[in-house]
């Protein structure tokens, strides 16, 4: 065992901290799910990109630093420690990009990665449908072959698409073989939301802002160049993407260490002994999550894979996040209900409540843990 960081990693941390200290906006940006906030967040993404901090783990040619997994975790710790804005491009760079790196052609990577990293194109997820939430094999939206134009015509409806209201491009699954059963016959498409036939209907989330959208597709043409991976091969590509979503890509330990430390400060300012255990619990859980993640990194660096373990991860962080924020609201007492209250805890709480629902509900994750890790028979 060796829980120390190397000199090189510590130097990386110092450099990141220095830049963030000098550049993180003093004022919180408006919500990224308002028009004004969306643009402010894109401008911040551009600033990160210009300083090569937008996508530290990516190759240099796409604007990254070729940072290893440990350095990436260090960057995330510093990012959230500095109180930097949420990442409006996160669905692109953390969810979709790993899939694009793995399954995309060189042309697709050159076309989409730089614009994604610079915040020029914000990607929107096109997973769920009215009849397919956590059960993606039930996707009904379809793609029909258009030989003449060399592509596909997409029709159907996607829902709960984060960043859909103002985003630029959508990634998601469409049924290319209507005869095939469930997870067969699905294809992964990249769709231009400005294309003819696309209608976007914003849906306000719990916080009142249109963070979700419903996307209607009516005979939308998508060229062959925007099929990711093979035709009818979409399921396995989707599995890789959702693994990123549940796993450490989207929820680095830094995201929880920062609020856990702020919670400690909140308690110290106005100690409420009745909440003491909950405060300690939140801090410990954030710390345990960090250790668990370093254990995962150790496994990955030894050539292992995450697989179904990402379900264990997802249940833990999503429930921890809710408890952490709920504790903060109790500490705030009467002020806990105020919209513009101290430190954005209410916003954080509302956001955290989505955790046990998205990326496959925690009920589905627990079934996956039981069946794929513990080996129990399939649930009826």
């Amino acid at each position, binding site marked *: 065992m*060796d*829980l120390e960081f190397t000199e090189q990693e510590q130097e990386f941390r110092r450099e990141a901290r220095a830049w963030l200290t000098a550049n993180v906006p003093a004022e919180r940006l408006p919500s990224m799910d308002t028009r004004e906030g969306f643009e402010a967040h894109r401008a911040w993404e551009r600033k990160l990109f210009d300083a090569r901090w937008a996508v530290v783990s990516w190759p240099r040619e796409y604007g990254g630093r070729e940072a290893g997994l440990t350095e990436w975790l260090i960057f995330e710790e510093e990012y959230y420690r500095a109180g930097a804005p949420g990442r409006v491009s996160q669905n692109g760079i953390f969810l979709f990009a790993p899939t694009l790196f793995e399954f995309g052609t060189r042309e697709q990577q050159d076309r989409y990665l730089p614009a994604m990293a610079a915040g020029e194109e914000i990607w929107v997820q096109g997973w769920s449908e009215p009849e397919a939430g956590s059960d993606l094999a039930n996707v009904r939206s379809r793609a029909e072959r258009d030989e003449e134009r060399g592509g596909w015509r997409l029709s159907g409806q996607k829902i709960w698409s984060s960043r859909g209201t103002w985003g630029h491009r959508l990634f998601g699954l469409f049924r290319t073989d209507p005869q095939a059963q469930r997870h067969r016959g699905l294809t992964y498409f990249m769709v231009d939301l400005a294309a003819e036939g696309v209608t976007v209907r914003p849906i306000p989330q719990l916080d009142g802002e249109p963070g979700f959208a419903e996307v209607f597709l009516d005979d939308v043409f998508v060229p062959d160049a925007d099929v990711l991976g093979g035709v009818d091969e979409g399921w396995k590509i989707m599995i890789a993407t959702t693994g990123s979503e549940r796993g450490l890509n989207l929820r680095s330990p830094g995201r929880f260490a920062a609020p856990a430390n702020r919670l400690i400060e909140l308690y110290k300012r106005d100690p409420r002994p009745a909440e*003491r255990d909950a405060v300690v619990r939140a801090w410990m859980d954030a710390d345990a999550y960090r*250790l668990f993640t370093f254990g995962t990194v150790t496994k990955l660096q030894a050539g292992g894979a995450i697989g179904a373990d990402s379900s264990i991860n997802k*249940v*833990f962080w999503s429930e921890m996040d809710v408890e952490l924020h709920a504790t903060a609201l109790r500490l705030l007492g009467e002020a806990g209900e105020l919209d513009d209250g101290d430190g954005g805890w209410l916003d954080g709480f509302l956001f955290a409540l989505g955790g046990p629902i998205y990326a496959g509900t925690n009920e589905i994750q627990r079934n996956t843990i039981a069946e794929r890790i513990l080996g129990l*028979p399939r*649930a009826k």
Partner: protein
Amino acid sequence: MRLAYTEDQELFRDTVRDFLADRCTTADVRAAWAADTAISARWVELAKVGVTGIVVPEEHDGLGMGDEELAAVLVEAGRAALPEPLLESAVAAGLFAEFAPDAGWLAEIAAGRAAASVLLPGQRLAVEAAAADVLVIGLADGDLHVATPADCVLTAQRSVDRSRKLFTVDFTPTARTLVASDTQRALARAADRGALGAAAQLLGLTRRMLDTTVEYAKQRVQRGVPIGSHQSVQHHLANVLIKLEFARPVVLRAAYSLARDLPSAARDVSMAKIYAGEAADLAARNCLQVHGAIGYTEEHDLHLFMKRAWALGTAWGDAGVHRDRIAADLLGDAPAPPTPAF
């Protein structure tokens, strides 16, 4: 950065796991329940594998290893519900190595010819105090004594886990038994080793309860289907696995910190005891629930592991003690508890 045991550590652990699978069956654990002492012929065999001498320095015929290896082996001891006082002897060995290396006990423990018990400040119960060959007793004023059972008045107490032979110890310190003074820091560290060791065993117990129950849930059929195909049963067991998987790295980190005497060691150990204790607690409850009435009997083996888990949950500082210690460190809202912490 590497949060995992080394290959050598894993190899040693696997050897012990195999040995215990063979030589510490549930029938053996039941035999320990029925006997006056749980120290059996197995103690010498454990010594041959190196287990009793893990933390005994090499010059006294031990392996000269530390908290990481001890924790790895104690996970296996937990998995098997090993009844011998392995942890107590290791804690005693650490104190011998520091304060009385030439008293002769180290080589005896390493060879399996002696077993030791300990009683640290704040502890009221000593495991195997009557059958142990030697008792290491730390007093709150920092005096460290080495005694034999004959130096003490021992009163047997009955643990929920009948294989834990517990005693209250009435001991009158003398100049003859005193081996060192001002050992508070060492006693605190010894207590931390005990808490870490208990945490490690709780991990093993959790794994064993979970594995046993998964097998049961696959085979037990009701209304025509295995009960493990019910979502409610699946969720009970998934919750145990989640608790276990998050307790594991916490225990590993505590072993690392304690082995290197890092400033955070005490807090890290407390966190390990809490996490492993919660995992074992949840395992006991959920696994009992999944087993139903058969789990509520002494005929089924599940109780052997549940009862050990309950015992170790309170031994070496219960969750409240350890939470207080962490809270004092994090929040500074209470005076740090006197060391040793329990």
